[in-house]
């Protein structure tokens, strides 16, 4: 039983496409926590934010840059996807998270409060 569960989980992990960790700044003030994440090349509609229980997942896909007949000469960005997750704590209000994506920087504001319910976060236009 536990074995089959483990294989299922391993299978699920393999389905996740390769991604890099975006660089982040995380800081806290009296009213909440702010996360800044560098995600250059990600458009608003390619950004996904999820809160499940106390886990916050940030994922974004870099828009493909492919003019006609583009052939790579040199590439430092080879994995066109960012993914990073954080464990939130109880006093943060996940229902009121604000997200703003501007010039490839995602700014998340997580206010402090009581209730914690899973929900999707809408992204404001940058």
């Amino acid at each position, binding site marked *: 039983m536990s074995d089959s569960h483990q294989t299922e989980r391993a299978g699920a992990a393999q389905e996740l496409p390769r991604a890099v960790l975006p*660089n*982040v*700044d*995380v*800081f*806290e*003030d*009296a009213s909440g926590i702010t996360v*800044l994440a*560098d*995600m*250059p*090349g*990600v*458009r608003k509609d390619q950004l996904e934010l999820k809160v499940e229980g106390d886990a916050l997942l940030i994922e974004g896909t870099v*828009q493909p*840059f492919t*003019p*006609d*007949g*583009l*052939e*790579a*000469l*040199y*590439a*430092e*960005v*080879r994995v066109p996807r960012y993914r990073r997750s954080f464990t939130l704590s109880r006093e943060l209000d996940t229902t009121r998270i604000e997200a703003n994506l*501007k*010039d*490839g*920087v995602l*700014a998340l504001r997580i206010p402090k409060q009581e209730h914690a319910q899973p929900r999707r976060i809408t992204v404001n236009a940058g």
Partner: protein
Amino acid sequence: MYESFLNYPNSLFGQFERLRRELDEAFAAPGLASSIRSAAPGTAPAVNVGRTPTSVEVYAFAPGLNAEKIDVTLDRGVLRISGERDSGIPTGDAKLQVYTRERGTGRFTRAITLPDDVDPARVSASYRDGVLQVSIALRESAQPRRITVQ
């Protein structure tokens, strides 16, 4: 100091450095050599360079910049991209606690050697979603041409 740990034979850091290099070698995409002017990750924007039949396209992944303050110059076949990024962390709040500070700030410069057949007079640059795209046209003589058979 960090440098000296890396260079010290058989030190733990030296072994990590060796492991890092081996992983780099194992996973690096074949056929893509690194440039002599490539910068260490995190110190300056990452750069991808591509080529189309009519132009060379440079993409610099530089999030959170003010487009007016990005400086792009092309001199003797070397494209230089420089700029400055302010920290997004507010200052002056004594109660502010910073947990993670990974995003680079301050001045940066990247230099990219371009192929010989570019036309330095026809360059355009645009900044969108944190990516600076510089497009340098190839000389007319370097572009593919269809030759009519008499």
